[in-house]
């Protein structure tokens, strides 16, 4: 049973990683935590799901739609909740609150548009079981793990090796200086927010496949988990988000398997406190 639970933890953990990568990107560049991230990607994936169930679209189209809608929501977030505040040079906490406001708006919009019910994901992609001797693995679990690892490497390469990545790092370092040096920082920020949200859309679709259902309220809880991973791994660190997502997933599953389900969130947030006490910059964060 131990090995099976480990696999369970790995699956749960890789969905957390996918979510946390979105947070990390935005934090790295803007220095703010986007509290609407969870709601944005659930909205996107719900649109994808509705296309499958109502309009009989193939999975590929729905997937694309989910990613595009999430990206568009990210764009709206940037133009309504982030940019106006940035212009006025208000403290960072203000944009934290404005993203919470945006999150509430998106969640209520989901209730209006899709209803509050959980929606079943009818696609059976990846529901087949592979028996690997001591453990059984679902196809979708392997897909999720693979997608998160690939995304991590792509992002890592993109940020560290490309010109755009350089611009992002410069903006993250110091927005004003970067702008003086001729970097279109607004462009950089828009790109980051859109890419982070689009990644969220990918995560949302995979989560829908993994849990066979999407619920409008899922965004909040999963968002918090992503946040926990972000802090655990060290804000701004993509590797940290990846590794700590999996650590958190495994820790949660084991606390349920060998303890009680009520400890699930306690473990997640207890870990944060512990890590912050021992390593305030997070497991993979750099010292400031």
């Amino acid at each position, binding site marked *: 049973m131990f090995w099976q639970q480990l696999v369970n933890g790995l*699956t749960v953990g890789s969905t957390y990683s996918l979510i946390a990568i979105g947070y990390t990107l935005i934090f790295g560049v803007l220095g703010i935590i986007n509290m609407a991230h969870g709601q944005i990607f659930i909205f996107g994936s719900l649109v994808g799901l509705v296309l499958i169930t109502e309009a009989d679209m193939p999975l590929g189209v729905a997937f694309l739609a989910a990613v595009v809608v999430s990206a568009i929501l990210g764009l709206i977030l940037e133009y309504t909740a982030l940019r106006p505040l940035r212009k006025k040079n208000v403290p960072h906490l203000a944009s934290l609150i404005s993203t919470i406001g945006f999150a509430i708006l998106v969640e209520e919009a989901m209730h209006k548009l899709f209803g509050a019910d959980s929606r079943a994901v009818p696609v059976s992609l990846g529901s087949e079981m592979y028996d690997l001797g001591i453990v*059984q693995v679902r196809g979708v679990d392997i897909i999720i793990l693979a997608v998160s690892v690939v995304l991590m490497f792509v992002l890592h390469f993109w940020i560290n090796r490309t010109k755009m990545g350089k611009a992002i790092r410069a903006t993250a370092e110091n927005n004003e200086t970067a702008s003086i040096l001729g970097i279109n920082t607004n462009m950089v920020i828009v790109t980051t927010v859109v890419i982070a949200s689009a990644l969220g859309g990918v995560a949302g679709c995979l989560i829908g496949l993994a849990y066979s*259902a999407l619920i409008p309220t899922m965004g909040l809880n999963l968002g918090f988990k992503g946040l926990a991973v972000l802090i655990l791994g060290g*804000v701004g660190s993509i590797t940290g988000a990846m590794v700590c997502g999996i650590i958190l997933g495994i820790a949660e599953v084991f606390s349920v*398997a060998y303890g009680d389900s009520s400890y699930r969130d306690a473990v997640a947030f207890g870990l944060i406190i512990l890590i912050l006490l021992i390593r305030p910059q997070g497991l993979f964060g750099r010292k400031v």
Partner: protein
Amino acid sequence: MKKSSRLLPSLLSIILGASLLAGCGGGSTSDSGGQAGESGGSSGGGEIVAKIGVVSFLSGSGAAYGEAQKAGLELAQAELNKANEGKLKIELLFEDSGGKKESAINAVNKLINQDNVVAIIGPTLSGEMFAAGPIANEAETPIFGISNTAEGINDIGEYVFRNSLPESIAIPTAMKKAVDKLGLKTAAFIYAANDDFSVSGFQTMKKTAEELGLENLGESTFSIGDVDFSAQLTKVKELNPDALLISGLYKEGSMIVKKARELGIQSTIIGGNGFNNPKVFEIAGDAAEGLIVATPFSPEKQDEKVQAFVKAFEEKYGKKPDQFAAQAYDALYIMSQSLLQAGEADRNKLRDALAQLKDFNGVSGKLSFDENRNPIGEAVVVVAKGGKYVPFE
């Protein structure tokens, strides 16, 4: 990235502050509500105008229940106001509790003291009723639960009613029948530990299992809002029980059923009252096949009244009614019958009329109240077959 070290402590303190606030919210609002006041509505010119408050779970994670209840109530309201034109006019005032005890308390206080309603229907969750029921009782306002199935609801006070069949009747009926027909010997339990309704259902299941001689192999818990149940179900698979008993609401419940079958658990699954919803089939799909539940209402029931209701509901809302809509619909019919009997929109007279209810024939079966105002009705045991519940034989 320089800002990060300063931002994190502030963020954490916000989260801490918010949780402290949430923790305090419970007790602070229960002090007003002692006055009985004059009760709502007027009875001028022969027509009784009755204002009835509804406290329902209309936003947030359980909004699906609230929506169903609202739909059932509005359908009944339209029908009743048409049928009783000139005699009785019912006005419904909806308040959203969001499934929170504090909000339910606030809503009940507002309805009683500010809106002067003659009675209150709701709140949706048993936990909310335990919090808000005493306030209505204190204010001598009838409060009528339409989905509170936990034990002890009627013990709150003599102004508290419900037409939802308690789990203590429904669950044992289903379990007994399943054990008789299928010869089950062992059982494992899984329930939502942070929900009064599910915990009460679990206790009934456990007690019934002892009485029936089912061996208890293990108990697992989950939380409302969970989406991952792999850890618990991997444990259940190891135990390999004859019966898996699930006490929870349909959202999580149907995901558990689906996941259990995916993992290859072969046990007979028996669910609590929460499974009584057509949505179970949408979420669990083929995995729902063979699921056994007891229900007061089944849209498949071959009964003239039930079929007329199902048809009217489908015409108005484009979907089949569930138990929540049916019991809400029945509740308003009971209210109007008792209001007409009371002769005026008076809280005390309405209470007395409600207490005398006998052999009310609603869409969710026949209903009477015993001397403790507990509903007496019958539960039908149904099994999932081909995407719907059919009587279990």
